[in-house]
C-alpha cells in the first residue's frame, strides 16, 4: 500500500513552546499525591451520608409497578395516619412544572417532559408518590398504605415500534415543551448532510451494518443520595451526591418555583458518578418533602433503585453505510442512529449528537456524509449521560466497520486507520454542523499523538509477532488480536463555562475555590497543580474547596470531559491575576520594577537576585501597607473542544467449545496532551477501560416482556472484579495542546470507547465471526461460531 501516509507530526507546530514549557514544569506533569486520598483511605466522614442531622426524616418513594399507566385514583389518608409519618406527596400537592432532570447548560437542549410527580407513570420504576417519616420503617409502612388505582395503558419497548403511527404516545401531556414529535415518541431528531456529488459514485465497495448496544448502568459504588435541610435563615440547603451543583440549584428552583437565592447546594465527596449524577434525581423530591415538613429529609437509592430509577446508557442501533475505494479512500459515510431514551428525554439530543460529532470527523470522508439521529421514547428506564456519551455507541459501529472495510480491500486494518484518521490542522464540516443544542463550532485539530499511540500500542502488545504466531489457529482455544482508535472532546465549545477564585493567606498559602466538581476524578488536585505552576509554589500550598453554590464561583460541573480543559484554564487565568497582584506588592517591598520580578520556589525573585517570601507579600498586603486582600476570580469558556485521541489493542483467547472470550492482554495508549497528573490520568483510563470491558463481555440490563427489570442487582448485573480483570496497560502519549492549560486535554471518558470494538475485531481475528450486538456473551459467541461452521 505504498507505505501509507507520513506519520502525523503532532508536535511540530508547537515544538518551541513545548521545549520551553516542558522543561520548566515544576508541578504540572509531575507526581503529586491526590490530596483527598488519605482522608478517604482512613474512612473520614466526607460523603453525603456521613453527617448526622438532628430531627432528620427518612424519605421514600413509591415506584410504578406498571410500564405505562394513568393514575385514576390515589388515596393517601391511611398512609398519613401511620405514626411518625410527616408528609405524603402525590401529583396533587406538588407544583407542576415541566422541566428536564438533565444537568446541562441553560436553556437545556433536552425536552421539558418531566414533573416532580405526575398523574401518569411511564416506566416500571417511575415516581408515583413520596413519603417522609421519622423512621425508615414508618416510611416503608406508609408507602404500602397508599391506595393507587391505575388505568393500564398499552406500553411500547422497542424504539422502531414506538416511532410508528398509532404507537402508544408516552408524552401526551399538553404542557410538555420541546418534544419534536410526541405523537411518534421522538424526543430528539437531527439530520445533516454534506453532499459533494452522487452518493457512492466513487466507491468500489459499499458496506452496511447495524450495531446494537443494550441498557447499561453506571454502577457508581455510592448510590444516589441527598439530604435537604434549612439554614438559620430558612434557606433550603441541599447536600447531595452530584456532578452538577449549580444545575441542581437552578433546576430545583425551577421545579419548586423557588428563587435561586433561597437554595444552597453543597457537594461533599462523591462516590463516583460516571454521568449518572449529572442529573436531578432526588433533590427536587427531597426538597419538596423538606418544604412540606419544615424538617431535614434524607433520601437514598437502594442499589436496586439505582439500576431501575436512576439513569442508564442509551441503548442504541447504529446503521452505518460506508463507501470506499480499493486504495483505502473512504468516499461516503451514512450514519443513522436510533437511541432509546426511555420514558424521559434527559440528554436525548446531546448524546445523539455526540454519537456523530465525536466519530464522523475522526476519519476523512472524501465525498458525502449523512447523519440521521433520532432519540425515541419507550416505556423503559430513562437513559442519561454515561461516560463516553454517545461516542461509545458510535465508535462500536465505526471501529468494527473499519476492520470490515480493511478486510474487504485486503489492507492491514492498522494501516487503513493510519491512512484515514484526521491530521493536525485538519477540520471537519461536522464540527460546525453538530453542536449540542445549538450550532457547533468550527475547529481544526491542534494536537494529535495518535500515530505515536498506535506505534506504542503495537509494540506493547507485540502485535506483529503475535499475529504471525496466531496464523491458522487450530484446536479449541483460538487467539486473536484487535484494535480500535477513537477520539472524544474536551468540554462543549462556547457552551461550558467554569470559574475559580484564589485567595492568599498570611503564610503564603492559598485557598482555591472552584465550582468544578471533583467526583473522585482528582480534579481538586490537578486544579491545584495548575495554580501552583503559575504561582511558583507547591500543590500542597493550596487548600482546595469544591463545590458549594454559596461559596464557590459558577461551574457547569463535571461532565463532557470538561474539567481539566475548561476549569483548568479558569484556574490558570485566576492564578495569573493573583500573580500580578503579588508582583505589585513585591515590587514595592523590593523596590524593583514589576517586569523584573517572577514567582519561583515560593518567593518573588528579581532579575538581580533580590527576593522576598510570599508570606512577606501576604502580610504586607494584609497588615502593613496599602492593605488589601490578594484575591482574584476568573472565568473560562472555550471556542474549541480539542479531542484527546486513543489507540486500544486487545488480545483474546476464544474457547470455541463454550464461546467464552478471555482477554489475555489489553493495551490503551492515550494522547491527553500534557497529563497534569500522570498517575491520576492513568487511573482515569484504567477505570474507563475496565468499565468498557464490562459492557463488552457481560453487562446488560434485561427486562421482562412487561418492562420489569430482571437483573437490578450486582449479583445479576455483572461488573468486573479483580478476578475477572485482564492485564490492563495504559500508556500516556504526550502532546501539547496549545489551547489547554499547560498543554492539557481531557482524559476521563475516551478510554471506555475502545474495548467493545477492539474485542469485536479480536474475536473476528481469532475465530472469523463478527458480533454486531453487545455484550459478547459465551452464548452469542458460540451461536455465531456454530452458524459460521454450517455455512
Amino acid at each position: 500500500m505504498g507505505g501509507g501516509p507520513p506519520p502525523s507530526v503532532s508536535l511540530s507546530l508547537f515544538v518551541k513552546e513545548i521545549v520551553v514549557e516542558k522543561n520548566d514544569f515544576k508541578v504540572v506533569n509531575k507526581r503529586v499525591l491526590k490530596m483527598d486520598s488519605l482522608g478517604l483511605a482512613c474512612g473520614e466522614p466526607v460523603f453525603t451520608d456521613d453527617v448526622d442531622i438532628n430531627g432528620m426524616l427518612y424519605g421514600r418513594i413509591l415506584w410504578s409497578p406498571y410500564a405505562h399507566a394513568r393514575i385514576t385514583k390515589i388515596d393517601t389518608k391511611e398512609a398519613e395516619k401511620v405514626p411518625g409519618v410527616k408528609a405524603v406527596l402525590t401529583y396533587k400537592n406538588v407544583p407542576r412544572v415541566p422541566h428536564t432532570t438533565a444537568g446541562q447548560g441553560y436553556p437545556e437542549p433536552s425536552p421539558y417532559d418531566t414533573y416532580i410527580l405526575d398523574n401518569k407513570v411511564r416506566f416500571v420504576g417511575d415516581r408515583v408518590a413520596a413519603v417522609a417519616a421519622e423512621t425508615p420503617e414508618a416510611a416503608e409502612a406508609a408507602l404500602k398504605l397508599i391506595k393507587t388505582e391505575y388505568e393500564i395503558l398499552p406500553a411500547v419497548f422497542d424504539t422502531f415500534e414506538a416511532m410508528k403511527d398509532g404507537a402508544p404516545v408516552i408524552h401526551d401531556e399538553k404542557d410538555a415543551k420541546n418534544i419534536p414529535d410526541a405523537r411518534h415518541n421522538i424526543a430528539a431528531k437531527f439530520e445533516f448532510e454534506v453532499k459533494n456529488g452522487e452518493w457512492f459514485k466513487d466507491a468500489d465497495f459499499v458496506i452496511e451494518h447495524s450495531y446494537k448496544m443494550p441498557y447499561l448502568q453506571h454502577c457508581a459504588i455510592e448510590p444516589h443520595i441527598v439530604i435537604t435541610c434549612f439554614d438559620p435563615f430558612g434557606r433550603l440547603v441541599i447536600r447531595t451526591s452530584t456532578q452538577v451543583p449549580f444545575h441542581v440549584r437552578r433546576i430545583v428552583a425551577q421545579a419548586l418555583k423557588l428563587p435561586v437565592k433561597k437554595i444552597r447546594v453543597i457537594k461533599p465527596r462523591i462516590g463516583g458518578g460516571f454521568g449518572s449524577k449529572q442529573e436531578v434525581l432526588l433533590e427536587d423530591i427531597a426538597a419538596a418533602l423538606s418544604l412540606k415538613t419544615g424538617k431535614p429529609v434524607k433520601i437514598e437509592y437502594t442499589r436496586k433503585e439505582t439500576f431501575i430509577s436512576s439513569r442508564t446508557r442509551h441503548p442504541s442501533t447504529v446503521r452505518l453505510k460506508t463507501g470506499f475505494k480499493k486504495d483505502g479512500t473512504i468516499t461516503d459515510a451514512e450514519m443513522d442512529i436510533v437511541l432509546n431514551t426511555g420514558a424521559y428525554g434527559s440528554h436525548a439530543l446531546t448524546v445523539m449528537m455526540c454519537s456523530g460529532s465525536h466519530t464522523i470527523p475522526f476519519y476523512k470522508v472524501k465525498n458525502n456524509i449523512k447523519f440521521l439521529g433520532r432519540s425515541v421514547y419507550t416505556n423503559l428506564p430513562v437513559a442519561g449521560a454515561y461516560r463516553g456519551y454517545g461516542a461509545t455507541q458510535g465508535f462500536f459501529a465505526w471501529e468494527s466497520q473499519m476492520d470490515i472495510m480493511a478486510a474487504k480491500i485486503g489492507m492491514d486494518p492498522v494501516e487503513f486507520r493510519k491512512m484515514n484518521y484526521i491530521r493536525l490542522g485538519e477540520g471537519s464540516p461536522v464540527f460546525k454542523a453538530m453542536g449540542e443544542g445549538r450550532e457547533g463550532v468550527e475547529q481544526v485539530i491542534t494536537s494529535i499523538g495518535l500515530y505515536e499511540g498506535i506505534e506504542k500500542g503495537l509494540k506493547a502488545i507485540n502485535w506483529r509477532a503475535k499475529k504471525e504466531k496466531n496464523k491458522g489457529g487450530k484446536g479449541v482455544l483460538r487467539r486473536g488480536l484487535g484494535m480500535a482508535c477513537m477520539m472524544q472532546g474536551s468540554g462543549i465549545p462556547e457552551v461550558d463555562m467554569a470559574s475559580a477564585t484564589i485567595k492568599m493567606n498570611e503564610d503564603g498559602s492559598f485557598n482555591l475555590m472552584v465550582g468544578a466538581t471533583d467526583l473522585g476524578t482528582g480534579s481538586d488536585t490537578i486544579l491545584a497543580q495548575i495554580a501552583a505552576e503559575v504561582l511558583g509554589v507547591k500543590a500542597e500550598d493550596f487548600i482546595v474547596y469544591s463545590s458549594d453554590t454559596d461559596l464557590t464561583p459558577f461551574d457547569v460541573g463535571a461532565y463532557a470531559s470538561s474539567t481539566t480543559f475548561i476549569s483548568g484554564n479558569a484556574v490558570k487565568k485566576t492564578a495569573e491575576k493573583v500573580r500580578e497582584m503579588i508582583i505589585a506588592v513585591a515590587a514595592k517591598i523590593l523596590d524593583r520594577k514589576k517586569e523584573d520580578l517572577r514567582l519561583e520556589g515560593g518567593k518573588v525573585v528579581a532579575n538581580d537576585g533580590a527576593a522576598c517570601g510570599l508570606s512577606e507579600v501576604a502580610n504586607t498586603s494584609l497588615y502593613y501597607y496599602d492593605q488589601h486582600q490578594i484575591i482574584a476570580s476568573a472565568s473560562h469558556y472555550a471556542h474549541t473542544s480539542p479531542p484527546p485521541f486513543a489507540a486500544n489493542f486487545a488480545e483474546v483467547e476464544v474457547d470455541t467449545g463454550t464461546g467464552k472470550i478471555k482477554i489475555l492482554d489489553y493495551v490503551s495508549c492515550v494522547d491527553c496532551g500534557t497529563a497534569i497528573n500522570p498517575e491520576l490520568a492513568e487511573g482515569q483510563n484504567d477505570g474507563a477501560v475496565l468499565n468498557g470491558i464490562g459492557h463488552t463481555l457481560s453487562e446488560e440490563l434485561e427486562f421482562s416482556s412487561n418492562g420489569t427489570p430482571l437483573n437490578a442487582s450486582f449479583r445479576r448485573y455483572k461488573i468486573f472484579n479483580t478476578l475477572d480483570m485482564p492485564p490492563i496497560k495504559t500508556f500516556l502519549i504526550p502532546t501539547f495542546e496549545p489551547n489547554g492549560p499547560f498543554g492539557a486535554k481531557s482524559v476521563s471518558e475516551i478510554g471506555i470507547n475502545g474495548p467493545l470494538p477492539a474485542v469485536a475485531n479480536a474475536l473476528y481475528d481469532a475465530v472469523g465471526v463478527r458480533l454486531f450486538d453487545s455484550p459478547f456473551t459465551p452464548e452469542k459467541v458460540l451461536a455465531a461460531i456454530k452458524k459460521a461452521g454450517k455455512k
Partner: protein
Amino acid sequence: MKKESIRLEAVNGVFRISLTVNGVKKNFAVKNNEFLLNALRRYGYKGAKKGCDTGDCGSCTVIFNGKPALACLIPAFTAHGAEITTIEGVGTVRNPHPLQEAFVEAGAVQCGFCIPGMILSSKHLLDVNPSPSEDDIKKYLDGNLCRCTGYVKQIQAVKMAAKKIKKA
C-alpha cells in the same frame, strides 16, 4: 474468642449488646431487624459504607472476630461479644497504616467509596500472608467492587504495602 452461651433478650424490639470496636468496649442498642452496618454507622463508624446492602459490593467490609465480613449481612445483635475492626481502627490521617499510605502513594484512591472495605480485606490478607502474589491479591479482593480504578493501582498498592510492612 471465649465461647459463652449468651442469652440476649430484646425489649420492645431492641437488643442491648456489648462488643469491642477497634479495641474499645462499646454498648450498642440495636433493633432486632437491624444489620451491623447500620448499627456501626449509627454509632459513628462512618467508614463502613453502604453500596448495595445485599452483600455484593464489599464496601461495608469490617474485620469481624478476626476475619473480613460483610457488615450489611450480619444481624446486629449477633455481634454481641464480637471484636470488630473498622477502617477507623486501622489508621488515621495523623497516623496512617502502611496500607493506607500505599493506597495514597499508588494513586489507588479515586472516589474512595470502596477503599475502606478494600483496605480491610487487604489488611487481613497481609496479616495471614505477608508476601502475597498478584494472584493471591486478586483472589482476596474479588469481593470488593470498584468502578473507578480498574483495580490496576489498587493491586499495586497492596504489593507496595506488603513491602512497607516487611521493612518496618
